[in-house]
């Protein structure tokens, strides 16, 4: 009851305190620079996360490989990228041209196929994707490795006995089952990635946060614009959460007790809040939810 009272007081103050400038929030919520920022943030999230998953799966396979060189390499990679702050990595990549002014591809000590100025090749967007993706790969690797380790050895042994080669066993037998364990933390990581992309504002990339900062630096409407930013992050996170729910279902085939569907679960939360706020329980809605 006390919680509900506090929430009510807070809600009333949020609505009535005109320093929140809800009108300004409304003006900017769908303005062109903010929408461009949303677009870039989404793009960074999707591409960097995809790169992270690809790198992560490769690293996990390397770590589990019987070849000591491969597993050691993966270990060092994970050690390095988990051990240094992402912000430092981003700035480091951004300034890579100070170490290597020109980048070329070719056979070592042999002919060069392609060469260019590092500053032209390493655009802020490329830096952001590389920095975010490579860092994410280190974390994803540990998640994937844990997922693979959680699968009973008998599964890969049965495949082995049927003559299924190791990589095919991984792809067809082990990974699909490991997904059930892997998807929830990866969903978590994706949501984290969405918000971590705001770090790229240090690279002067016009993501959602940077776009808002550019506006309030001009208009001094800091709070309303941060609310705009938060509303967008919340909205995208909500969509990702729903997506994760259905992905988890997809990877648990044959389970009849996969739990209530997402809308029902939310409905249940709302119903329970409502029934807690009224002294008498609301039997009609509660029974319906059963």
């Amino acid at each position: 009851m006390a919680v509900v009272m506090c929430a009510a007081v807070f809600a009333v103050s949020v609505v009535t305190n005109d320093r929140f400038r809800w009108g300004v929030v409304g003006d900017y919520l769908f303005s062109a620079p903010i929408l461009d920022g949303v677009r870039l943030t989404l793009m960074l999230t999707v591409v960097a996360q995809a790169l992270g998953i690809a790198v992560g799966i490769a690293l996990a396979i390397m770590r589990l490989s019987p070849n000591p060189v491969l597993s050691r390499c993966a270990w060092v990679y994970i050690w390095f990228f988990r051990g240094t702050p992402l912000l430092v990595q981003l700035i480091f990549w951004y300034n890579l041209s100070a170490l290597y002014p020109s980048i070329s591809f070719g056979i070592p000590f042999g002919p060069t196929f392609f060469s260019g100025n590092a500053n032209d090749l390493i655009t802020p967007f490329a830096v952001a994707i590389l920095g975010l993706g490579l860092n994410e790969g280190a974390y994803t690797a540990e998640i994937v490795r844990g997922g693979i380790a959680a699968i009973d050895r008998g599964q890969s042994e049965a495949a082995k006995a049927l003559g299924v080669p190791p990589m095919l066993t991984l792809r067809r037998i082990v990974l699909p089952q490991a997904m059930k364990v892997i998807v929830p933390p990866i969903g978590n990581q994706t949501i984290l990635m969405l918000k971590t992309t705001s770090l790229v504002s240090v690279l002067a990339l016009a993501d959602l946060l940077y776009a808002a900062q550019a506006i309030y630096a001009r208009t001094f409407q800091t709070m309303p614009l941060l609310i705009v930013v938060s509303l967008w992050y919340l909205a995208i996170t909500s969509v990702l959460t729903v997506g994760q729910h259905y992905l988890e279902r997809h990877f648990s085939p044959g389970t009849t007790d996969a739990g209530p569907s997402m809308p029902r679960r939310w409905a249940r939360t709302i119903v329970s809040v409502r029934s807690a706020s009224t002294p008498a329980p609301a039997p009609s809605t509660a029974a319906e939810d059963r």
Partner: protein
Amino acid sequence: MTEPAMRAEAIRKSFGSVEVLRGIDLEVAVGEVTCLVGPSGSGKTTFLRCINHLEKINSGRVYIHGELLAYRERGGRLHEMKDRDVCKQRASIGMVFQSFNLFQHMTVLENIVEAPVHVLRQPRDEAVDRARRLLARVGLSNKESSYPRHLSGGQQQRVAIARALAMEPRLMLFDEPTSALDPELVGEVLSAMLDLAHSGMTMIVVTHEMGFARQVADTVVFMDAGQIVEQGSPREVLDDPQHVRTKAFLSKVM
């Protein structure tokens, strides 16, 4: 003279400092059923797993239908084959595990067609037709779209047998196929194995089911402490054991 289905020569295998197989020699003729019996820890299961290279042997040789398993001999030395070549050899050896090991994320039918389609590259329709015939043979035609966790242990093990048979193996290995089952489910699995034996399949069975061994086996092999102590027909080994260790074991289990 035809080659034996399986010939093992002086197989030795250690886990760390513990030697679990101490020189095993065994021949299994084509079409024969051989039962490996013995106390737990005697190395029966390890030996069975060496027959399809699930365990790497430390020394000795395994020949499957006359072909050296998992190694190539060159200049008097043995070289281990690449994974891909070992896989090809394994494809002709079926194996049934104590804990079934059905692929949990696949239906019964998908379990059976998985290897034929992806390893033998059989057309899917053909593999499905064959899988349905095999399911009928083990009496599970109505379960093809069930997931393993919805089946009883006995049903799972019969699916596992069908899955192994789908690769058209010439040799079948059974690792205590009924040990994880409730007593009332043992019969259905044994009768599927009996049917298979009658069809002329070469089988090597690690088992504690002395009744099955007596009824089906051509040869019973008694192992203890990593060695073959005694072998012969069921009548010789089970009814008139010569060795004191065999007698001691049989007096406990029968």
